[in-house]
């Protein structure tokens, strides 16, 4: 058996040369644009200067992390990020489920399709368009909603600059933009429910409400739990574009989140090392949370994401 010589790696690769050549651009892409930046995280331990480069910049250890944790901004960012995420979890998360349950009761195909077509639209428009619509509707002078609020309360609320409205605007934008799209996964789960169960329940004299409680909800329960766990895993990801577009100098005390903070300090003010440290803190915590929630999903007997 010793005589059968194992093919050398080089001749194996030569035999499958096209496979490896096809892979090459993709691998180079991942190295340059994904792994080099990961290596670039090292600047969070330096006083990085673009002129000196990574090799020439002064090493400062964990100083930027220390400064960040001592900075009052740290607490502000945590509070703002979690406030927005938790409000989203409470008010936005149930919306697609509720709407999917209601839409599932509508048996008229044309009505159902028309409603779906309408409420999916906002998913495809950009955040800039969502912000533009919001600015138009909430304009302090001519905004429709401002005018309607003025009719009810007597004075014109400053929706766009008053900090107390900011978080609610973000949550309502999310509800408007993504409720319809979020339904798809629940509608699919609902479509998979065996209709014989309903027929049997009807024979047993169960009304619509009891059918929903005892058949429909249990059958989409696992989907709901998985979606909920995954949402918890991404609590730190508030989305840069939406917050950045709605943020201004008057509401920034409640609007500043990790991503916008990194942008302001890093890109506009050039504090590369400090902002990289902030970004790295966020990425590490976020990745850990995703891994933990994913592990919980698997423990629950679901497939998980990774």
């Amino acid at each position, binding site marked *: 058996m010793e005589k059968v010589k194992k093919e050398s790696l080089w001749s194996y690769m030569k035999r499958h040369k096209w496979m490896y050549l096809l892979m090459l651009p993709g691998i180079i892409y991942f190295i340059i644009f994904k792994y080099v930046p990961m290596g670039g995280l090292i600047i969070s331990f330096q006083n990085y200067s673009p002129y000196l480069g990574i090799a020439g910049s002064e090493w400062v250890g964990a100083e930027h992390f220390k400064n960040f944790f001592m900075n009052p901004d740290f607490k502000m960012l945590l509070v703002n990020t979690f406030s927005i995420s938790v409000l989203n979890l409470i008010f936005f998360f149930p919306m697609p489920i509720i709407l999917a349950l209601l839409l599932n009761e509508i048996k008229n195909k044309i009505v159902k399709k028309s409603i779906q077509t309408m409420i999916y639209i906002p998913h495809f428009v950009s955040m800039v368009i969502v912000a533009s619509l919001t600015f*138009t509707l909430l304009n302090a002078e001519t905004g429709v909603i401002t005018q*309607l609020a003025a009719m009810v309360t007597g004075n014109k609320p400053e929706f766009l600059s008053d900090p107390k409205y900011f978080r609610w605007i973000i949550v309502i934008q999310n509800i408007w933009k993504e409720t319809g799209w979020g339904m798809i996964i629940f509608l699919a789960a609902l479509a998979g429910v065996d209709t014989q169960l309903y027929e049997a329940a009807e024979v047993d004299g169960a*009304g619509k409400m009891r059918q929903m409680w005892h058949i429909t909800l249990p059958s989409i329960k696992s989907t709901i739990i998985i979606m909920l766990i995954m949402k918890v895993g991404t609590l730190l990801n508030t989305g840069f574009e939406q917050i950045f577009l709605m943020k201004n100098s008057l509401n920034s005390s409640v609007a500043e989140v990790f991503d916008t903070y990194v942008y302001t300090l890093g890109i506009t003010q050039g504090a590369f090392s400090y902002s990289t440290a902030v970004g790295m803190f966020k990425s590490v915590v976020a990745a850990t949370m995703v891994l933990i929630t994913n592990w919980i999903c698997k423990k629950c007997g679901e497939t998980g994401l990774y």
Partner: protein
Amino acid sequence: MFTVNKNKIKMSPAEKAGLTAAYVVCILSGILTIIPFLYIVAGSFATEKELVERSFFIIPHTFSYNAYRYIVADGSIFRGLANSFLIMIAGTIINMAFTATLAYPLSKSWLKGRNLVLNMVIVTMLFSGGMIPNYLVVKNLGLLDSYLALMLPGAVNAFNLIIIKNFFQELPVELEEAAKIDGCSDLEIFLRIILPLSKPSLASVGLFYAVSHWNDFFNSLIYLNTTKKFPVQIILRQIVLLAQGASANGSSIDFGVGGTPPEQAVRMAATVVATIPILCVYPFVQKYFEQGVMVGAVKG
């Protein structure tokens, strides 16, 4: 009449009320979703006076095209649309080239080193260098303020890669084996057999990429400086959010007696013009995206 009702089990009044409520809530949600669009279309054709005086309307009392005359004369939003279109087409071509060529070898589970590369991809789904290191890489490559900065850093999306890889994996192996016997190289098999067979899944992933290029704001914000290169999303933000609508070209139009540039209507008209392209492709996109959600949900 009788035959219609025969199979239906009678509903109690409470159930009837419940069903009516479901209809009402669903139809109301549909209307609430599209009403902002209807309002800005109406507002873009209204006069400034009417926008200030009337609160909500779908049909303006006096039709005015001043806002559209203004944005046509100004031209920036149309330049933005043209730029966005260019970025979208070129960007999607780059995306597809990089994604499909990587996905094919990754679909061969017997290939040595394939698992290593696949794991390398999966790690990037979980963890990334983040905004500043990415920015510095683009800067050091000398790509700042060029369209390549909008196309190359996101050339392969890991989720899309896995969708295509899974699709390739499901194609029957016999076809490839037959081609091999006929003397085709792996490259010929990929180009002549695999790609043509995968048109539907390539089309849907191409659409995902195209829509994300079109809607992208973040990358243009951090990488572009030259006003002439701005895509429509950046220009729309300047007009509507930063109130930089009034430019020299635009204000030279004669708006008639007491006519000032209709600021609010201009913002609405700009939003309408920026929204129209995506609404035109919406019917196609909706179908493919719905399938995409399900593929993503099943395969992860």
